[in-house]
């Protein structure tokens, strides 16, 4: 049943006129109420932009984004695990341009002048009424000894979906029998807490099926598995006891580019396939523009609406926000999507000068533990006034009781839905 058919049917009954104002609520005051500029067409930025346009088409929305298409970080482990291809996780911005009249500028943002309310790119200056920043994370290799630009080929991170994802996927596919894969996991907070463990599971699942005598060593900087620990451990014990070797407190401190080795404080490990996931922080752009408190790595925001706690008319959402400001919400795609919606409603409230409503967020992270089964963690969050933080609601947080093929199916259908929610 689509809108046109419904209208036609209603017309037959003569009630169309009573419904019409409802259907086109937002077009009635077609005037320019303001311009919102969004930096970053990732999960946060797209969710914010589309929500604003869906509710208030009369608001002008411009997105600044270097990339000409969207490549999804969630589900990129499925490509590395040989279950999907890059095409399956790559999408165009055409619907947002054509259906929602969102303008895209594929340029690099250089700086913000909050006093003039202007953001500059490498080619132009754009004025804004409200600015939403969703720039994601920056990978920080500064603590890795011997790291050079060209180390990427031997030590890809594949932590931002793109060419490195394809590179790592090819390396896994082509590994010889008897080969060793090593994954290095940074200290938290980093983007997608269960991501490295899902990646390990999917690579192990592939090795088990198609390769002989291979090993997968996980060098974790953390004391234990950061997310869904018991569920991952159970799957590894039952499915990959002869493949996966998990080493806690084993941060990589350096690399040997010539011999393809990881160095920890305790040992050197030769890798046939190395995946170096480095430490992460908010992009330098935010620091350069004074949006990060001194000594901090993540952007300072007010948790009620994700407005910057430093500058007016600027909002910051997604992975680059500080958990010590926001509260204990994970840096996940689902949370960035929820933050985008909260921020969109707050921006609309400001543009129309109405009271803001208390934020409500959901997170669900699905992870595969094999090519056949998945696990999940979920929570509902709202705003806690006493602590001035976003907090999970008591009783409304938890893990799936076990792994199942239903959760694998749900994981892909979730991705398909939420991609459409942002890009459809």
């Amino acid at each position, binding site marked *: 049943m689509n809108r046109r058919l419904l209208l036609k049917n209603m017309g037959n009954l003569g009630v169309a006129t009573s419904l019409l104002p409802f259907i086109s609520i937002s077009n009635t005051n077609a005037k320019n109420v303001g311009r919102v500029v969004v930096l970053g067409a990732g999960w946060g930025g797209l969710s914010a932009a589309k929500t604003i346009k869906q509710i208030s088409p009369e608001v002008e929305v411009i997105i600044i984004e270097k990339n000409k298409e969207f490549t999804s970080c969630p589900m990129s482990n499925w490509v590395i695990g040989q279950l999907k291809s890059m095409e399956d996780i790559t999408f165009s911005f055409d619907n947002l341009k054509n259906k929602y009249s969102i303008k895209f500028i594929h340029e690099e943002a250089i700086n913000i002048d909050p006093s003039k309310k202007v953001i500059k790119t490498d080619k132009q200056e754009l004025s804004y009424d409200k600015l939403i920043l969703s720039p994601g994370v920056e990978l920080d290799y500064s603590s890795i000894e011997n790291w050079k630009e060209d180390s990427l080929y031997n030590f890809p991170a594949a932590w931002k979906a793109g060419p490195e994802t394809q590179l790592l996927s090819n390396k896994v596919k082509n590994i010889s029998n008897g080969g060793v894969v090593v994954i290095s996991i940074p200290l938290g907070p980093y983007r997608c807490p269960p991501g490295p463990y899902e990646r390990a599971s999917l690579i192990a699942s592939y090795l088990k099926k198609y390769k002989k005598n291979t090993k997968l060593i996980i060098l974790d900087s953390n004391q234990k598995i950061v997310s869904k620990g018991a569920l991952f451990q159970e799957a590894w014990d039952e499915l990959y006891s002869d493949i996966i070797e998990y080493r806690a407190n084993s941060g990589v401190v350096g690399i040997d580019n010539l011999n393809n080795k990881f160095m920890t404080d305790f040992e050197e490990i030769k890798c046939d396939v190395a995946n170096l996931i480095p430490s992460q922080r908010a992009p330098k752009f935010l620091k350069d523009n004074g949006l990060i408190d001194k000594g901090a790595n993540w952007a300072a925001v007010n948790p009620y609406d994700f407005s910057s706690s430093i500058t007016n008319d600027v909002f910051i959402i997604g992975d680059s926000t500080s958990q010590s400001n926001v509260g204990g919400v994970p840096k996940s795609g689902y949370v960035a999507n929820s933050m985008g919606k909260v921020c969109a409603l707050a921006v609309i409230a400001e543009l129309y000068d109405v009271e803001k409503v208390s934020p409500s967020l*959901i997170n669900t992270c699905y992870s595969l533990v094999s090519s056949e089964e998945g696990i999940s963690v979920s929570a509902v969050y709202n705003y806690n006034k006493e602590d001035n933080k976003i907090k999970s609601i008591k009783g409304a947080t938890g893990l799936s009781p076990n792994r199942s093929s239903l959760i694998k199916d749900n994981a892909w259908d979730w991705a398909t839905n939420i991609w459409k929610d942002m890009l459809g």
Partner: protein
Amino acid sequence: MMKGIMKYISSYFFLCIVFVSFNVFAENKDFLKAVDSSHTSKSFIEARSLSLPCLGCHGQSNASIPSLFQLKEDYIYNALIEYQSDKREHYLMQIISKGYSDEELKIISKYYSLQGLYNE
């Protein structure tokens, strides 16, 4: 023969939808009015604030996760209450449903039952 049956089914379907649409519209006039008055009204933003996060999983398609669009308000509400009290089993919805008060569940149920009427 098949064509005849299909025609019968589709006209029945059409009538049902018209009936449901009309009924829902009449029953929810006050709510619609609140939502409708303007997208700047607080109740409109409140309903969206609670309901939009659900769309991460529940979209328009009915693959392994059901769409909420065009489900009846009572059906959505009762399902949520059953998940909340653990009378109905689901590895995820038993967790999510506990994140909302009874009043909030009612708002979410109403929001989705109405969304189906005008969303594409």
